[in-house]
């Protein structure tokens, strides 16, 4: 299986690549201005987090919009990738009232394939100034933390997922399980 990581300039982009590599996936980090035609043979995409703030400098998100529009396989947006997915599809992201850095706890409200086999509450690692403030049409919120109501979302029909927290870092509990679940979705849709 081939899953690429789109680099939006995150501190943990390379960690996403490492987790996928450890899970035995054929993976590569690609710049976020790679043409969508380069992704023909790819089974899934991870849109990384990054320094760009999607509300302030969306142009730094390169061709992420093209991927969301034209890539037919599953997409997992993380942090900035998640916020961009929301704004691109008609939702909104804005500076968070309480930005989260470091340790937090998420509660899963809506069971989903992404959290299969996980407890409804677990510890995660955060690093964000902005957050999703309005879900895009067709999306459901899956999880929240005390200071952020959309910690996870997914599209009801298309395999589009967004996570505000960082499943790729060592200190997030069940991180590799979340990636494994995403890979199952990738496998089933090819």
């Amino acid at each position, binding site marked *: 299986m081939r899953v690429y990581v789109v680099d939006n*300039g995150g*501190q943990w*982009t390379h960690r996403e690549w490492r987790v996928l590599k450890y899970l035995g996936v054929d993976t590569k980090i690609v710049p976020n201005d790679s043409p969508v035609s380069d992704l023909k043979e790819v089974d899934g995409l991870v849109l990384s987090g990054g*320094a760009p703030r999607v509300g302030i400098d969306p142009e730094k998100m390169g061709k992420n919009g093209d991927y969301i529009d034209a890539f037919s396989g599953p997409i997992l947006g993380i942090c900035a990738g998640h916020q961009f997915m929301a704004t691109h599809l008609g939702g909104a992201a804005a500076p968070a009232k309480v930005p989260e*850095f*470091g340790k937090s706890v998420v509660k899963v409200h809506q069971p989903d394939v992404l959290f299969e086999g996980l407890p409804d509450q677990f510890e995660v690692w955060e*690093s964000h100034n902005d957050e999703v403030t309005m879900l895009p049409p067709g999306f459901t919120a899956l999880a929240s933390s005390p200071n952020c109501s959309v910690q996870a979302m997914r599209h009801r029909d298309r395999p589009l997922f967004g996570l505000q927290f960082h499943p790729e*870092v*060592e*200190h997030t509990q069940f991180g590799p399980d979340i990636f494994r679940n995403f890979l199952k979705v990738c496998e089933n849709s090819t």
Partner: protein
Amino acid sequence: MTFDAKAFIAEQVEAVRKGVSGKAIIACSGGVDSTTAAVLASRSLGDRLLAVYVDTGLMRKDETNDVARTLKELKVNHRILRDEDEFFAALRGISDPEKKRIIIGNKFIELFEREAKTFGADSLVQGTIAPDWIESGGQLRDRIKTHHNVAGLPANMKLKLVEPLRDIYKDEVRALARALGVRVAERQPFPGPGLAVRVVGEVTPDRVGLGVVGEVTPDKVGLVREASAIVEHEIEAAAKEKRLTLPWQYFAVLLPVQTVGVHGDLRVYGQTIAVRAVDSIDGMTAVFSKIPLDVLDRISTRITNEVPGVNRVVYDVSNKPPATIEWE
């Protein structure tokens, strides 16, 4: 699947062999990354490799002797340089942490280019690992801090850069080091700019008169060096007694904050040491270590009694993020 050290060694020994046509020098601090890279590159290049270690005057207690011993044991062709005066002179008057890092990076390269010329090398091997280039930033990625081995390199550097560990993290480097029989495999990380980033503010070796009247305090680097040695000794002793699991990293930082204390019924206006200890796997996220209070108590008492001029010790309870592991 996890990290396959054997496959990685085979792959990178071949890559270094292909990447270096003539001779190479390797910048070696004696830490896990550069020592492992030196052993790896030495397998590819043999006598065509020269490891260069620089004593910047910013090293820990007994570090230079220890590194010399390690390189000798590993049978890596090497050279030890002592250039502390040059480093201190370059750092005079500088308190901005990024400027410190860049000055040190430039100084290193100046020395390495000189050594490369003498040795006839056209390549520079470095033990750069993933967090070094990630945190140094570039293009979209924000610069968190300048790692001297990445962002400290001049744009017009003539040496060809070879970095076999670029895509791996510390836990993977340790696995590699164990597979290569490197003695320092479990050594705690120590930053390239050394104690310069553990003295918050200016790194002058000649500040005087802060302790008891008439008494001269040691230089700031000497002070943080002594305090760090105490932190290391006490935490390692407690780990040996199984009182705690050895943290990923543990050290002292000298703060640019003076506070009031009382020594022998006399007022003192002394220095503050912050103790930092964190648990991590890859250095990209970290939590502060839950050191037993009596161990902290011992560290505090020893530092304030044994390191002249220090009358206050604080413990850093920040995680990464939002903080970083080092203070600068």
